[in-house]
């Protein structure tokens, strides 16, 4: 028994909501994924097992459809639509990202489906909302993140270079997070009130409220932030936070030293490494360490002493990094109480001892291949609601017979 055991979700296969279905399925929901004959296009997405294409070999597909069952139904056919209505009658949630008018045209939109299931929760994800004609325009993760705000804030100090989109289809992911939040909210309400409802999720709006200061700086002060390399976009230029370490890898120093204790730790470390002699500014670290009470951060840049102390903090970190690898720099800084991170590639993070110790690497059986593979693990460690990948992604039509037979006997 876990959090969503007994909750049935019907998901109409679409790359835009696949991750939302996975998040629900890995928490125990019975997610039945409906594909059209011939399968969902994302079965053909790279990367492939051993780099050889095949409808059950896409690792993209493998990742986004764990723990789901898969059936093939042709919603263009009336007979199949009757099956679909019966399935909805057995379901708690419909999750879909169809073109905004398609289900109505087929006579299977929320208003019709409530006849099969009065307390249905129907979560519809579209680019701009169900009633917006702009949702009919073609869009991809890139264009959604460009129009929705994140990209304006991301990139390099050099504005001759284009804004940069972070990897991993985070635009889709953000919309999926809101689809899941909505589903859980609607389920909690239904369990109390007995009523279901229709939920309209806008991918564009989801980006718009996931930009931190870019939105609220405009809303509050009518000012526009500007992108900067590896750190927060801001209304005025701020100092760099990424440091290249002795092994060529980067670390992020985040918020630089700013408390007397942090300056003291940094000063001690500089001395231990024997770097103080070539670093006359170390005297400012000492001043920072002996400062009486917290610093007035608004004085950085205007008060000469405070400015010199903060500059020495940053410079001290650069001096140390020039002598140690990124991993040692990260650990050394953290031991000194400084919140610093090493810039890992995804696979470096995945193999890192911390994530391994937290059980993030999970084995998933692929019985048809006689092998198991390591997958990414849980986003949250829940004491009683077990997160688990209960089965690998479904092969095309793998559960059609099983699901429809059970439906017939229900």
């Amino acid at each position, binding site marked *: 028994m876990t959090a969503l055991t007994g909750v049935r979700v019907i998901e109409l296969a679409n790359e835009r909501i696949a991750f939302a279905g996975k998040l629900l399925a890995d928490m125990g929901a019975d997610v039945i994924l409906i594909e059209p004959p011939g399968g969902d296009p*994302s079965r053909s997405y790279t*990367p492939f*097992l051993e780099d050889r294409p095949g409808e059950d070999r896409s690792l993209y597909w493998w990742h986004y459809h764990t723990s789901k069952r898969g059936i093939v139904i042709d919603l263009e056919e009336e007979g199949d639509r009757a099956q679909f209505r019966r399935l909805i009658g057995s379901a708690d949630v419909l999750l879909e990202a169809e073109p905004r008018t398609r289900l109505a045209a087929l006579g299977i939109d929320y208003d019709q489906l409530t006849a099969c299931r009065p307390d249905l929760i129907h979560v519809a994800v579209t680019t701009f909302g169900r009633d917006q004609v702009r949702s009919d325009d*073609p869009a991809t993760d890139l264009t959604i993140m*460009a129009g929705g705000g994140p990209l304006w804030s991301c990139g390099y100090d050099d504005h001759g270079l284009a804004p940069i989109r972070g990897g991993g289809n985070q635009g889709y992911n953000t919309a999926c997070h*809101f689809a899941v939040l909505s589903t859980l909210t609607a389920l909690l309400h239904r369990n*109390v009130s007995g009523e279901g409802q229709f939920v309209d999720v806008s991918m564009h709006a989801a980006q718009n*409220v996931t930009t931190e200061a870019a939105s609220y700086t405009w809303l509050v002060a009518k000012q526009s932030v500007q992108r900067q390399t590896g750190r*927060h976009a801001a209304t005025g230029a701020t100092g760099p936070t990424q440091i290249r370490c002795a092994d060529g890898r980067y670390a992020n120093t985040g918020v630089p030293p700013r408390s007397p204790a942090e300056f003291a730790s940094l000063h001690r470390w500089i001395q231990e490494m024997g770097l103080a002699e070539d670093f006359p500014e170390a005297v400012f670290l000492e001043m920072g360490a002996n400062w009486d009470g917290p610093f007035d951060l608004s004085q950085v840049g205007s008060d000469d002493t405070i400015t010199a102390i903060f500059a020495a903090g940053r410079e001290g970190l650069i001096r140390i990094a020039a002598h140690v690898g990124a991993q040692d720099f990260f650990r050394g800084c953290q031991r000194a109480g400084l919140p610093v991170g090493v810039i*890992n590639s995804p696979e470096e993070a995945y193999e890192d001892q911390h994530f391994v110790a937290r059980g993030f690497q999970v084995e998933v059986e692929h019985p048809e291949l006689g092998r198991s593979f390591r997958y990414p693990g849980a986003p949250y460690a829940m004491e009683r609601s077990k997160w688990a990948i209960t089965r690998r992604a479904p092969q095309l039509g793998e559960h059609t017979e099983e699901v429809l037979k059970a439906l017939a006997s229900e």
Partner: protein
Amino acid sequence: MGGALSSFRICDFTGQLAGAGATKWLASFGAEVIRIEDPVRQGRWDILRGMSPFVDERRGVDMGGGFNNHNTGKLGITLNLRTARGKEILREIIARSDVVAENFAKGVLERWGFGYATLKQIKPDIIYVSNCGFGHFGPYSDFKTWGPIVQAMSGLTFTSGLPDKEPAGWGYSYMDHTGGYYMAMAIMLSLLHRQRTGEGQWVDLACTDAALSLHGPALLDWTVNGRPMRRPGQPHSNRNEWPWMAPHGIYRCAGDDEWVSISCRSDTDWQALAGTMNARWCDDLRFSTLASRLEHQDALDEVIEAWTRTRDKFDVQRRLLAAGVPAAAVQKPQERIDQDPTTAAFGLWPRVHHSKIGSVRVDGQPVRFSKTNWEITRGAPCLSEHTEEVLSGLLGMTADEIGELRSEGVI
């Protein structure tokens, strides 16, 4: 109030965005969220309380624009947990709550005497959700993080950039937002679990776990095929590998720092783009198939940018969308907030009333519920704004008792 979550009460120690964003969602659907802050430090543990942006020249712990944005609809009380009476009152609030939520560094709540074991003693079915960068278990659990550190550790920073350059990373704390989303999910999953079984639980949320889980295909390419992301030519994150697309990028337009994104999902899209650009080089054989466009992506990007750079970004967007090609201007904050009819139509920027700041717009929720929609009308609480209301309304204290607590420095 008939909100979707109005039957739940949250004892809320969260702050910044990674925590406060989670309880903002719950409050906007009607949950009673009681923020508990330290009167001695004037709630400054949440550094956003007094931080810019500001609506005018006024400053102080009630004036931070970001704090107001992330804490709409919540109640705010102060409790001095250094005092025995403060602890006693907290116990009474916890006993009446469904959830205790916090995003302190590991061990802070426990040092105040409110570790999970104690919470359970006070309320056997309590749901306790802690949220910190590395979680409460594991080799780095004593290390400290901020959003950018979480992004660095988990691969998000690395996968945003251009080949042979330092990472571009994220120009904001994507993982403070997203960590908050996962925290809200964990709270609601636990509430659903409790509705079914009657049992509470502890959720140890580590933002770095949540962040690393956002790289699925890249991680499987590593574990299954042994192909790392750290390899020559990577990352090149405006391009698209999963699935392959070309052209796929962001191109300069007319004006200062104006850009448009274009992505061709298929040969059909490419032909429609070429037809719109109507340039002789479009017939270049190097660009005739996806494989060949991928091979000559640098040349392709160059000629496309030669076309876009003399044109207005919205004009390029309009013409390409009309031709069926995915395209979108890189919108600046003012463009998507004040000039974009789709965000206005969605009611995305609700105006709230804050007791001191006054009337100001904030981020809404990007969803619409047909029966129990979200509602954001009240700004963030000023420091201790609702202490009397909560102590009298929830705990039944008299004005005299509350006055005494105030004079003793408990609230």
